[in-house]
C-alpha cells in the first residue's frame, strides 16, 4: 500500500514533465496542424537557459536561492519563448507563406531539432552540466511515503499550467481565435483575424511552458546534456497523440497516463520489460480509439 502511494507520487512527478511538454505539441498542432518535432529540443534549450540564468543569478549576482528561482522562472520562460518564436519566424513561416505542404514543414521541424542539439554540442561541448541547487530540498516521510518539496512543486506547476492554458484557449478572445484558425485556416483570416500573430502567440505559449518544464526538469534531474530533450520529446509527442493531439485536456491526461504506465510497469513487473509493456498499452489504447482519448476524427492527418 505504501509502495503504491509512493509510486503514484513518482508517476505524478514523471508524468508532469510529459504533460508540460505534450501541451506544447498539442497547442501548435491544434492551430497549425503541424507536428513541431523540434519541441523536445526547445525543452532542452529551456533547461540550458535555466542553467545559465541560474548560474548567473547565483554566482555573478550572488542572490539568495529563492530570489534567483523567482527571477529564473520568468527569465527562462521568456527566453525560451523567444527561441520558439525565432524558429517559427525563420523556419516555418517562410515555408507556410510559400504554400509548402505540411509534410515539408514537419521535416523542417525535425531538422531544426537536430540543429539545436548539435549547435549546443558545438558551442558548449559534450561534457555535462550540473545544475546548481536553487532551493534546499527537504525530504518528508509520512506513513512510509517519501516525497520532497520539489516534487510537490513540480506536480502543482503542471496542474497550474494546464488550468491556465485551458482557460486561455476556452475563455479568452485569443483562445477563441486559435480555435477558429484550427477550424479553418483559409476563411478565418478573411474575417479579420491576424493569422501570423495568433501563430506567434501559440509558439510563445508552447515554448514558454517547454522552458518552464526545462527549468523544473533541471532542478529535479540536475544533469544536463545536449540530447536530453530528444527521447523525452518523442515520448511526450506519443503522450499527446494518445491523449488526442490538438486537445489540451488530451495532452495533459496523455502525459500523466504515459508517466503512470511507465512507473507502474516497473513497480509491478520486471523493469526489463518497461518500454515493451508501456508502449503495448498505448498501442492498445490507440487501436481502440485511433484519434486518442479526446481526439475527433478528421479527414486529413499526417
Amino acid at each position: 500500500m505504501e509502495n503504491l502511494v509512493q509510486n503514484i507520487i513518482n508517476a505524478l512527478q514523471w508524468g508532469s514533465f510529459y504533460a508540460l511538454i505534450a501541451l506544447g505539441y498539442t497547442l501548435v498542432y491544434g492551430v497549425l496542424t503541424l507536428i513541431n518535432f523540434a519541441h523536445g529540443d526547445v525543452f532542452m534549450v529551456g533547461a540550458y537557459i535555466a542553467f545559465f540564468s541560474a548560474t548567473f543569478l547565483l554566482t555573478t549576482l550572488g542572490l539568495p536561492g529563492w530570489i534567483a528561482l523567482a527571477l529564473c522562472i520568468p527569465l527562462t520562460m521568456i527566453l525560451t519563448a523567444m527561441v520558439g518564436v525565432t524558429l517559427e519566424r525563420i523556419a516555418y513561416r517562410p515555408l507556410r507563406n510559400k504554400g509548402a505542404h505540411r509534410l515539408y514543414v514537419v521535416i523542417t521541424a525535425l531538422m531544426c531539432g537536430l540543429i539545436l542539439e548539435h549547435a549546443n554540442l558545438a558551442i558548449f561541448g559534450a561534457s555535462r552540466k550540473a545544475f546548481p541547487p536553487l532551493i534546499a530540498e527537504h525530504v518528508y516521510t509520512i506513513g512510509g511515503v517519501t516525497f520532497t518539496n520539489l516534487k510537490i512543486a513540480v506536480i502543482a506547476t503542471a496542474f497550474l499550467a494546464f488550468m491556465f492554458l485551458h482557460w486561455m484557449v476556452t475563455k479568452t478572445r485569443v483562445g477563441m481565435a486559435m480555435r477558429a484558425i484550427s477550424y479553418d485556416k483559409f476563411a478565418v483570416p478573411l474575417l479579420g483575424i491576424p493569422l501570423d500573430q495568433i501563430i506567434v502567440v501559440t509558439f510563445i505559449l508552447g515554448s514558454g511552458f517547454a522552458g518552464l518544464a526545462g527549468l523544473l526538469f533541471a532542478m529535479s534531474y540536475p544533469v544536463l546534456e545536449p540530447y536530453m530533450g530528444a527521447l523525452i520529446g518523442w515520448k511526450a509527442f506519443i503522450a499527446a497523440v494518445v491523449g488526442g493531439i490538438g486537445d489540451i485536456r488530451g495532452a495533459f491526461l496523455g502525459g500523466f497516463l504515459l508517466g503512470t504506465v511507465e512507473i507502474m510497469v516497473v513497480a509491478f513487473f520486471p523493469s526489463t520489460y518497461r518500454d515493451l509493456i508501456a508502449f503495448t498499452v498505448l498501442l492498445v489504447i490507440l487501436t481502440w480509439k485511433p484519434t486518442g482519448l479526446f481526439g475527433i476524427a478528421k479527414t486529413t492527418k499526417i
Partner: protein
Amino acid sequence: MKRLLTTLSISCIAMIMAVPVIAADTIKIGFNLEMTGDIPKVGESSKFAAEMLKADINGAGGLEVGGKKYKLEFIYEDNEAKAESAVTTTLKLIEKDEVLAMIGPNSTKQAIPAGQVANDNEMVMISPWSTNPDTTFNRPWVFRAAFLDSFQGPMAVNFAIKTFKAKTSAVLYDLSNDYSKGLAEVFKKLFEGKMGAGSVLAFESHGTKDQDFSAQLTKIIAAKPDFIFLPDNYNQVALIVKQARQLGYKGEFMGSDAWGSSELMTLCGKDCVGLHFSTHYAAAGATGATKEFIERYKAKYSYTPDDVAALTWDATGVVLKAIQNTGGLTGKLKKDRKAIRAGMAAITSFGGITGNMKFNEQGDPIKCGVVVQITKNGEFAFNESICPE
C-alpha cells in the same frame, strides 16, 4: 587491348598501394574514442594521456624500432559512444588512415563490436578500459589493459561482505549497456553463491537515456537491502544516488570502475561522498611513476587524471613496446600488423602505472585492483587493494 587494360589497372592499384610505403618514417596509431555522446570525459582523458605520451617520445627524437627512429602520429577518431559508430570508426582507421594498431574503444559497449572488426581485419586493438570478457574472448588480435569483470565482480562481493557486513543486496543496472549488464549478472551469481539463493533482494534495470529511476528505486528500497550494487556509468550514478536519497534511502552503495571519472563529483556533489567503488588505480596517495604521471597530467590539464587516462597511458605503452619487439618495420601494412601481433604475444610482463600486468592467452592482463572511497574533497582515496589469487 584487354590485357593492356588489366596491366594498366594492376599497375594503378600497385601505385596507389605503394604511396603509404614511401612515407614510412612515422608510425601511425589510431585512437577510437568516446569524445562526444554519453561519456565524453572518458574520451577526453584518453586523448590527453595519449598526447602526453606522444609529446614525451617525439620530444626525445621518436620511437626506436630496430635501430631506426620513428616519429609517432596519433589519429583520434570519435565513436560518439555508440556501438555502430565504433565499427565505422574502426574500419576508417584500418582502411583509410592505415594505422598499424588501434587503441580503444574504452567502453565495453563500443569495444565488443569494434573488437570483432579489428580481429577480422587482422589488426592489433587494445582497449584500455573495457572489462567485459567478450571484448577479447576468442579474438587473438584484441587485447586490453584493464582487469576483467570476472575479477571485478568478486572484488565487489568480497569487499561488501567484509566491510559493510552485508547479508543482502540489490542491483540496479543499465540494460542496454553490455558492461553494466555483464557485471550485474556476475555479481548476482557470486553474491547468491556466498549468501544463499534469494539474497539479492531486487535485480532491476533501466535504459541508457533514462533520467527518472524512482520506480526502480522505490522497489529496491522497499526490499530493504544492506547495500545497492550500482555498476553504471558516472552520469547515471549521479542521478540514481541523488534520487535514492530523495526517496529516503540512507544506506550504502557499491560501484564499479565506470564511476571513476573526474566528472562524477561535479555532477553528484555531496550525495556521493563516502561511497565506495572498485577501480584500476587510486590517484590519491599514489607513488613512483604513477605519482609522476598524475602530477604532470594535473599540471598540464588542471584536473586529476581518472583511471581511463592512466589505462590509456599503459595501453599505448604496451602497443609501443610490441612495435619495438618487432625488431624493425618493413613498411608493408599487413606484414607489420602481423609482426606487431607477434610482438604483443612476446610481452611477458609490463610495468605500467596502473600496476604490473602479465597477459594470458586471451589477451587479458592479470593485475591487481583497488577499492576507493570518495572523500569530502571529491578525491578517490585508496581503501583496499585486491589481487587475483
